[in-house]
């Protein structure tokens, strides 16, 4: 229990990555201790051995530093540190690439930072503040944003952190290996109560976690809440959310997530969380090829947490084995029958009308 600790000298090791980080740390400490002691020993030894004595020559002989021996020395003490530091570099990079790439099937949790609290949303609908309940031995991916200034979600026991930025999404992942309670710290200075922006991660057995989830919010899953928001904001009036309906003024959202979207300016972009957020708040910044810039901004009309729910809803419009995964799309405005795409290729085309220009009479839309 965290409260019981009064003194410690080493943090708990509670994630898969922590063992890797500690391994590199041991190497760095070893190399540093070796060189510090070597230098300290030589300084003291020289200071004693070569101290000026009454019989010392007034001017000690000094080695010619253009001699071959001196050059060898210079090369040796350049090349050895360089070699050692390249090992540190490569080792550090390899850990970093593991740390910065969440495994594909990670369990997703959404984090919103604000002065001075952490708001956390689980896909199943549970919400918590300054607490994060997670099951052991699962890859957990956090998608994070801030409502105000820059924060940083740091769990020392997992040896990982990432900045939580306003205006964009960042991610962080870990796989807890030990049941227990661990600190969450905000590690980026964020104002008056920065040191109060702390919380606790509860790593639980899968059973305990299921039980905890069962006492959820009762407000439905995040995707369901996102769908409600989608309706409330009238998004469906323009964006079809049924498969293969290309008659809307705006791009169809089914199967959009994760695909590459062709833009009007000829470039393309991956439809990830950040892209969806940007398209809702700054619709003019990326126009889908074949559509016009007619969407109004929803900036100021939707909170960051609401935005995350919308994102989760749009993600849920992915198709899995031909059926909608989480939420059921609304039959919106047109009578088109949902069809089942059979291949990934069909999903891709859903992101934009495949080559077809919308009917001339119909007003054209963004995205």
């Amino acid at each position, binding site marked *: 229990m965290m409260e019981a600790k009064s003194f*410690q*000298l080493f943090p708990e090791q509670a994630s898969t990555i922590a063992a890797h980080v500690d391994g590199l740390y041991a190497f760095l400490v070893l190399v540093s201790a070796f060189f510090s002691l070597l230098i300290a020993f030589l300084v003291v030894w*020289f200071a004693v051995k070569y101290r000026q004595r009454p019989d010392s020559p007034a001017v000690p002989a000094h080695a010619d530093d253009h001699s071959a021996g001196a050059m060898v020395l210079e090369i040796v003490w350049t090349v050895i540190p360089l070699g050692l530091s390249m090992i540190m*570099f490569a080792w550090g990079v390899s850990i970093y690439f593991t740390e910065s790439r969440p495994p594909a099937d990670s369990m997703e949790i959404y984090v919103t930072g604000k002065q001075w609290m952490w708001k956390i949303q689980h896909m199943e609908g549970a919400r918590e503040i300054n607490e994060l309940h997670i099951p052991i031995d699962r890859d957990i991916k956090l998608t994070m944003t801030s409502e105000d200034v820059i924060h940083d979600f740091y769990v020392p026991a997992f040896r990982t952190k990432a900045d939580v930025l306003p205006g964009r999404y960042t991610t962080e992942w870990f796989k807890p290996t030990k049941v227990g309670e661990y*600190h969450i710290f905000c590690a980026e200075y964020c104002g008056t109560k920065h*040191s109060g922006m702390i919380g606790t991660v509860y790593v639980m057995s899968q059973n305990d976690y299921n039980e905890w989830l069962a006492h959820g919010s009762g407000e439905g899953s995040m995707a369901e809440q996102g769908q409600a928001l989608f309706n409330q904001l009238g998004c469906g009036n323009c964006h079809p959310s049924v498969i293969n309906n290309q008659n809307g003024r705006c791009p169809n959202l089914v199967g959009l997530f994760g695909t590459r979207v062709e833009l009007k300016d000829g470039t393309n972009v991956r439809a990830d969380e950040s892209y969806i957020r940007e398209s809702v708040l700054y619709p003019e910044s990326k126009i889908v090829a074949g559509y016009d810039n007619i969407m109004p901004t929803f900036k100021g009309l939707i909170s960051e947490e609401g935005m995350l729910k919308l994102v989760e809803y749009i993600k849920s419009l992915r198709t899995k084995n031909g059926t909608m995964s989480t939420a059921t799309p609304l039959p919106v405005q047109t009578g088109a029958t949902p069809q089942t795409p059979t291949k990934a290729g069909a999903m891709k085309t859903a992101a934009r009308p495949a080559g077809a220009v919308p009917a001339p009479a119909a007003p054209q839309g963004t995205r």
Partner: protein
Amino acid sequence: MIEAKYPVREKKNYLNAEHGLMSWLLTKDHKRIAILYLYAVTFFFVIGGLFAALIRLELATPAGDLLDSNTYNKVFTMHGVIMIFFFLIPSIPAILGNFLIPLMIGAKDLAFPRINLISWYIYMVGGLIGTFVVCTGGVDTGWTFYTPFSSSYSNGYVVLTALAAFINGFSSILTGLNFIVTVHRMRAPGLTWFRLPLFVWAHYATSAVMILGTPVIAVTLFLLMLERGLHIGFFDPAYGGDPVLFQHLFWFYSHPAVYIMILPSMGVISEVISTFSSKKPFGYTFIAFSSVAIAVFGFLVWGHHLFVSSQSAYAGMVFSVLSYIVAIPSAVKIFNWLATMYKGNIRLETPMLYAIGFMGLFTIGGLTGLFLAAMGMDVHLTDTYFVVAHFHYVMVGGAVTGYLAGLHFWWPKMTGRMYPQGWSKVSAIMVFTGFNLTFFPQFLLGYMGMPRRYHVYPPEFAVLNVLSSAGASLLGIGFLIPGIYFIWSLKYGKLAGANPWGATGLEWQTASPPPTENFAITPVVTHEAYDYSTVVHEEEVVHVG
């Protein structure tokens, strides 16, 4: 070069050549301007030190019981702003560099004496604005001014503080410009580039960084002021800006600024170790060019501050590898200093004690930098006390220790007086011990995960924090003692001879304190640098004119 014979100690020297306040405030003598800087920089060091004392007092207990959170945040911000912009950056260059560069190269003054005086006034304007901010309520952004907190959320005097640092930057630029032109144009006959003291090489490299880097922080702070004052969006996403852009611009200057602080210190250490070993520095050219290499590569590593800021992993790799490369020239210096001591005539006078302390502390500071340059390691360590410990080992263990070594080394030259040897050695040892006791525990705190800038912290961090605060009081006393005996020495110190340490540089060939014109006759250099066969001590005054 004058051999075996020192100039007569004249009654007239730069200190008593003229009298009255205006003779100081309107002086164009580089030595007097150095003294003006000494007063001002010492003032800011004391203020910054008092803030440090408040921080350590507050952190002696886990609860926030001495200050409220707002005040605590202002205290660490003002500590950082004052120590970095008003103490560390000007300390060695503006005091010792200003005083010594003309003397070391056999010149009468810097190339632009009026610009030299103007740069002191610019520094004072910046400093007064900074002092005004301190007295009227302070600022709570941290010295790093990260947006959008600083531009849209902080309720302190952000614009004024940024303005103080902005104005102060021009002082740096002008000083750097002055040094570069002086070194190029005003060397004594026979003083070739490779006969220059390593102190001058270090300052030459530092000046280049000042001139190239400082305009970038000026622009960045200007954009910050525009965003905060006029809501023109550069950094705050609410105005369409990019918050991480600020960090790139800020560190593009502020990482090289670390080298503005440490390079002059390394120059001092090269002089001190050579003198107190009576030996030419081993690998003179390697030490000289390592300063240049640090200055060049120092500009290419700023992204290692952004490994957790959503920077691309591939950009991070480039910054990581370059950060390792910039560490190599520092390692080369340490090994060359060691080789200089090897078979020397080592005298453990006070400046040498500080130099030895520097080698130990800077080694630890440098090695822990390797931890932070390793990307996967930095993700855990960044923004924790590990970083705080690391940069204090470099900035205090390195830069301040080097400054104290230099001050003790050239004090007899600057004032014509010796300070008490016993007290100065005691305080050197206290500084070293107190420093380690203060900052070594912070490495452990950092690895355990204690974030920096925390006013209140969980109880398991308490023991190490108490240790750190105890060490800080020892360190504080270690800094206080020199303040007392330096002032004492001005009146009661033994009169110093022209060359009390048996050093080789041209500055030791003229009287202590030097006459206003530095040298009665322009010296002609016929020897390599650091030729100890030509040196004769003049510890105490032999000739009085």
